[in-house]
């Protein structure tokens, strides 16, 4: 028997000043189904979900939830109709415990007091039903991100949500946590809960999704059964052209050593890290979340005050005590978190691109040379094909991929000799990823040395010539990327030396 349709969005159109964000988009969802919503950044996925959830109001079209035509004015109304969104940024209160978070605002009471006995009992019931092993009394701040996400899902289920929207749920999870999440999704399906699954990782779509809807530039492209399609076909639908491979064939030309790190130690962050880096090569750093990859990069970039060990740049010992020191030396670090650490969202594209080199374009040694600043921004907007109405646009109005290009422009403007990319393609679309890979090739062609940190093993293995693997704040070993495979990397990453 065919499953009942619980959600139907028809001909949804939404226009923002200057952009048609959604143009007659269709989407439908059945009971107990996991339905992937795919598309590049700016394709309209988030907007569609915001329209569904009552954050934005549609201009045209119809939404039918469980047979009833609806128009939610706010998220509260959507929630009452059984809809819940699990956001990328989790919305839990860190200093309250699991039970308090799940039933926040809906606590059972004894008079004016919270009935904690009942609260914990009900929480255990929900967690058991989902097969999640978390202590109801644990504080949220003490849980890892994967567990926090489980709590968020439990909260939605406890509110009788039967339509869940998961927005990039795996973007900050370890592989192990992802497996647990997928088991949970299977159980949710058995309970007839319908799930909209938004992700950039195509492997996941094939692993857990039943159907796929693809959007491109705010338009509905197609809806297909997962079993009747493949990765290449989906990529083609998303970008409107075929991408032969996910990764380009890189040409490395390592020459002399530019950086040498000896016994670099940062209390609680890094233990005795030693490695060297050559011009014209890409050195990959792999490791599980929390293994110290980012901290190693930040230690080289001068973020930590307390540290020991030696850093040599072109054979000369150097002291780097601040990011300013590092940038002056010729080292630039691209943060894994572009919103929190990469961009000033309230400033314009031009102001973000120029910030690191502002002092080199002054008039009368005092005033910012506006025309030089505009020229710089225009150059990079053209070179990196940043999609923005003008250089005056505020960065917060750009899509993720374009924001990333702004950060990269800022980095390039300093003409660095060593670039550390930390998760450069996280949360950005296939097309923009490819452009960033090509840019790395250009950088090493010019003799720049590149360090690439990534959670995606295929990315590290295909783009680097050497890979160092970290485990619990230590470098476990080094592999030749040409012969290494995911298995050998994972072995080191989980702490087993060969």
């Amino acid at each position, binding site marked *: 028997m065919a499953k009942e349709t619980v959600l139907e969005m028809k001909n949804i159109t939404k226009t923002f*000043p200057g952009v048609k964000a959604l143009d007659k988009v269709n989407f439908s969802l059945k009971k107990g189904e996991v339905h992937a919503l795919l598309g590049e950044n700016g394709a309209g996925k988030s907007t569609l979900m915001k329209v569904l959830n009552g954050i934005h109001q549609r201009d045209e079209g119809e939404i039918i939830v469980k047979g009833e035509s609806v128009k939610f004015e706010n998220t509260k109304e959507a929630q009452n109709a059984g809809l819940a969104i699990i956001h990328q940024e989790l919305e839990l209160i860190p200093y309250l415990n699991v039970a308090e978070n799940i039933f926040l605002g809906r606590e059972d009471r004894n008079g004016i007091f919270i009935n904690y006995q009942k609260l914990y009992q009900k929480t255990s019931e929900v967690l058991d039903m989902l097969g999640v092993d978390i202590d109801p009394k644990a504080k949220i701040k003490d849980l890892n991100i994967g567990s926090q996400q489980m709590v968020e899902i439990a909260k939605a289920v406890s509110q009788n949500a039967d339509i869940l929207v998961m927005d990039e749920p795996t973007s900050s999870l370890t592989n192990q946590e992802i497996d647990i999440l997928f088991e949970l999704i299977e159980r949710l399906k058995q309970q007839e809960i319908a799930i909209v699954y938004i992700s950039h990782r195509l492997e996941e779509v094939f692993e857990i999704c039943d159907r796929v809807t693809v959007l491109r530039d705010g338009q509905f492209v197609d809806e297909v059964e997962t079993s009747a399609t493949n990765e290449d076909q989906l990529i083609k639908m998303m970008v409107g052209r075929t991408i032969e491979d996910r990764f380009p064939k890189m040409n490395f030309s390592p020459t002399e050593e530019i950086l040498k790190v000896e016994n670099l130690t940062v209390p609680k962050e890094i233990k005795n890290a030693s490695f060297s880096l050559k011009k014209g090569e890409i050195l990959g750093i792999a490791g599980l979340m929390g293994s110290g990859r980012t901290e190693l990069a930040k230690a080289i*970039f001068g*973020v930590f005050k307390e540290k020991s060990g030696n850093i040599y740049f072109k054979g000369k010992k150097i002291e780097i005590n*601040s*990011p*300013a020191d*590092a*940038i*002056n030396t010729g080292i630039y*670090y691209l*943060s894994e978190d572009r919103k*929190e*650490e*990469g*961009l*000033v*969202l*309230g*400033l314009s594209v031009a*102001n973000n691109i120029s*910030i*690191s080199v*502002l*002092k080199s374009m*002054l008039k009368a040694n*005092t*005033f*910012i040379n506006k025309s030089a600043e505009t020229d710089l921004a225009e150059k990079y907007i053209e070179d990196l094909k940043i999609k923005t109405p003008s250089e005056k646009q505020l960065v917060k109005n750009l899509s993720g991929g374009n924001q990333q290009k702004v950060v990269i422009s*800022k980095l390039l403007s*300093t003409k660095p000799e060593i670039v550390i990319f930390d998760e450069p393609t996280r949360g950005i679309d296939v097309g923009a990823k490819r452009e960033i890979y090509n840019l790395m090739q250009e950088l090493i062609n010019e003799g720049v040395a590149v360090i690439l940190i990534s959670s995606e093993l295929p990315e590290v293995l295909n783009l680097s010539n050497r890979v160092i693997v970290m485990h619990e704040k230590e470098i476990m070993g080094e592999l030749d990327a040409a012969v290494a495979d995911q298995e050998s990397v994972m072995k080191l990453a989980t702490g087993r030396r060969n």
Partner: protein
Amino acid sequence: MNNENNTSKKNFLEIINKFKTGIGLLILVIVLSFLSPYFLTIPNVLNIIRQVSIIAIVSFGMTMVILTGGIDLSVGSMLAFSGAITAGMMVNSGLNVFLAILIGLAAGTALGFFNGLAVAKAKLPAFIVTLAMMTIARGFTLIYTDGRPISGFNETFRFFGAGYLGRIPIPVVIMFIFLIIIYILLKKTPLGRYIYAIGGNETATKLSGINTDKIKIAVYALNGFLASVSGIILTSRLNSAQPMSGEGYELDAIAAVVLGGTSLSGGSGTVIGTIVGALIIAVLNNGLNLLNVSSFYQLVAKGAVILLAVFLDRKSQQ
């Protein structure tokens, strides 16, 4: 066609939104000029601007501090301290006027510098640091003056508070000079850009190679300096350094900044907005005085206007 109409309507709304504080001031002025025939006369207008000048100079510094995402509650105390030091240097130590002013300015700037150091280097919350400084600087002032006003200045010193350039009071001239300097500093120099960037995202600014600690220390020190300028003008105008002068100025300055549209979380706002905000408060006070409204009611009116303005600002951003 329809689309074009929409765009032009939208542009119109955007312009209204941009100048809403100014428009608010204009409406206030028009209403008051009908209610009181004396309101829009040259002596009264000059009177208002002179009244506003002292608090405005303090507000300029406050604008920069708030733009970085900070706050400074100690401006009133720093103002009193520098006024007292300047007065004491002239009256008790017999120093030359300009040397005394220089020492007074240095004293206030040093206190601001200390605020900056505690906020930037020791990573203490600005609210706490400047709350402590508010008490400490007031204590210093009372210790230095022994709790008594210092007075008896020569004509040269009186000029800064009571003098005129043509018909324009000197405090107003000084205010305009600082308005222009701070405007240019914020709009045209790297320091200004970094101030906005720190308020927008301090971590990203630091990782872009900017010494954010240095910028923050500079901003708090500059704020101490501007509070000192106000303190010296006030001392000169009153012909007396009062140990308790400047009490409550921090709230008036914050009110002017917020009325002027600067975000309390930092990153956006202008010093032009601040001067308009300060003028709204001053015009309101003056108008209510002219209308013989009791000062008790004036306090209520001032608070209500601040609430209304912030409410409208929040609405227009949605």
